[in-house]
């Protein structure tokens, strides 16, 4: 049975200084107060988790932070034997592989999203949407396995030789062709982030009011010209989707580790093996027996955390600005 508020607390006939039930829930019901407090505690846990992650990593990275300071970011020597640790090769590998993935993935993702939202008939767009979403359901390690045994040999035989023949004069396509390296890593990342980018772009396009399309069509625009209007309207959201994809690419671990070659070096050539921040953590964490080694790896983790956190936060805000803004104007 629900307990009704007593007249004393409801009308304040006798002044109560503080009622815990009212403090916790506006209804003043005991059950409500307990229920709400419990739920609040769980929600608070999410907040605490983020804080705890930063605190735990920062405290474990202390040793390395003190030892190398800012030089950690600019030194390219990574030598566990001599105890010298610099993050530059990993930062380079992470940035180049992620950018390569974006260059390949963005046009395709936009194409997929435009096709599904603007062009395909409903009975075609439903199943294709599901199939593209399935690409996102494939685990990273499975992409890695496929990358090692299918993609890498394929690139080594049919893609990299012609690239080197035509573009070998640039510094980007020189060196020995092995099928393992930055290029393969970038392509596997591109495949992995395409479903993520296209899913968000789909939401963004769907949030653009239908009146925009009707207006363009009424002015005699072709379908593609209408689509360009829609794309321009969804601009910030699409930017958000791309940044979200970048965040995924930067943090992707297993698949990249399996095909990028794992060598801490900085080379302009995309055919050379490289190393990413996430990969070096995955590979060397269990081997790190010395305190300073482990600390340097945790500091890499801390850098990765802060970067992906900022990227994801920015992306969310951009996407929200479109999906919320348009629903607001539609209501107004």
């Amino acid at each position: 049975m629900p307990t009704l508020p007593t007249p004393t607390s409801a009308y304040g006939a006798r002044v109560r200084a503080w009622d815990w039930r009212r403090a916790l829930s506006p209804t003043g019901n005991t059950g409500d107060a307990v229920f709400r407090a419990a739920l609040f505690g769980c929600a608070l846990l999410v907040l605490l988790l983020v804080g705890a992650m930063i605190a735990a990593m920062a405290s474990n990275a202390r040793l390395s932070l003190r030892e190398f300071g800012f030089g950690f970011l600019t030194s390219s020597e990574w030598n566990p034997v001599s105890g010298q640790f610099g993050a530059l090769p990993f930062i380079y590998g992470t940035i180049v592989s992620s950018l390569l993935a974006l260059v390949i993935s963005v046009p395709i993702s936009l194409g997929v999203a435009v096709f599904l939202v603007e062009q395909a008939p409903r009975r075609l767009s439903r199943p294709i949407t599901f199939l593209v979403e399935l690409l996102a359901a494939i685990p990273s390690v499975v992409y890695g396995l496929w990358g090692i045994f299918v993609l890498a040999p394929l690139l080594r035989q049919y893609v990299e030789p012609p690239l080197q023949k035509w573009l070998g004069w640039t510094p980007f396509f020189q060196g020995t062709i092995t099928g393992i390296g930055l290029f393969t890593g970038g392509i596997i990342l591109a495949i992995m982030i395409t479903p993520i980018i296209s899913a968000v772009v789909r939401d963004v396009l769907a949030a653009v009011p239908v009146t925009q399309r009707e207006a363009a069509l009424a002015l005699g625009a072709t379908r593609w010209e209408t689509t360009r209007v829609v794309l321009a309207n969804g601009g910030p959201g699409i930017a958000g989707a791309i940044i979200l994809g970048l965040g995924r690419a930067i943090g992707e671990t297993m698949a990249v580790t399996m095909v990028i070659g794992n060598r801490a070096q900085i080379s302009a050539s995309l055919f050379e093996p490289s190393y990413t921040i996430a990969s070096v953590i995955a590979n060397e964490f269990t081997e790190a027996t010395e305190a300073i080694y482990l600390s340097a790896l945790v500091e890499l983790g801390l850098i990765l955390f802060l970067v992906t956190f900022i990227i994801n936060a920015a992306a969310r805000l951009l996407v929200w600005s479109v999906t919320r803004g348009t629903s607001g104007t539609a209501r107004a």
Partner: protein
Amino acid sequence: MPTTHARRYATNAVMTTLTAACAFFAVAVLVLILGYIAYRGLGAISFQFLIETPKPVGEGGGIGNAILGTLILLAMACVVGMPFGIATGIYLAEYGAGRFASLVRFLTDTLTGIPSILVGVFVYTIIVLPMKQFSAMAGGVALAMIMIPIVARTTEEMIRLVPASLREGALALGAPQWRVTTGVVLPAAASGIVTGAMLAVARVSGETAPLLFTAFGSRFFNVYLDQPMASLTVQIYNYAISPYDEWHAQAWAATLILMTLILVINITVRFFTRGKI
């Protein structure tokens, strides 16, 4: 002008074809990957393979302990992660108007984008280091941490779909808020919440990076939570980067098992929620 007209329509035709080609390309990649897994996996799978433990190269062996390990880790992740995830989702949906709730919503969304390997690093520092041992428990907690934000957001969305009239009806009958939520809103949203939970399980079952230095891996059947535990994904990884053809074949077979689990969950969910999500 007719030339402009022709050019505009030609552009339209070209762009329409290109976008369709993009979609076709994405689907083709999916078919290629799944097809190759089926081809290599079916060739290497046997009943023995499903129940035995790993053996040295040349002696066969199987992934029985890895299958059991994955199931135990998933169960543990559900026990730890689901209650928190669902409770956070309910909070966001039912009391989620204020600034605190916006912050939580924002952080859960951001957390889903944090690389899963960092969850492994975090759990390593708070559980493995103090215990001085890799353990299944640490693996379960790591997976639970990945699960919580996913479950929280799907739960919130599902609860928001419950019509306000249901809540108002119950409130009008004199039920307190908590009875309305647990007795009326949750049952109405139950199928959606279960769906979200299943998708979270599918997503987490493929995680490798957070298990590398928490559950670590094991060559034996293990049910003790304070001991290292094998999992399908870590086993696939270890076999894939090994130099032996026999282990590569086993990696494909293990992948077939893992992908079957993931696809069955995804397709079942899709079947039951046609048109709802």
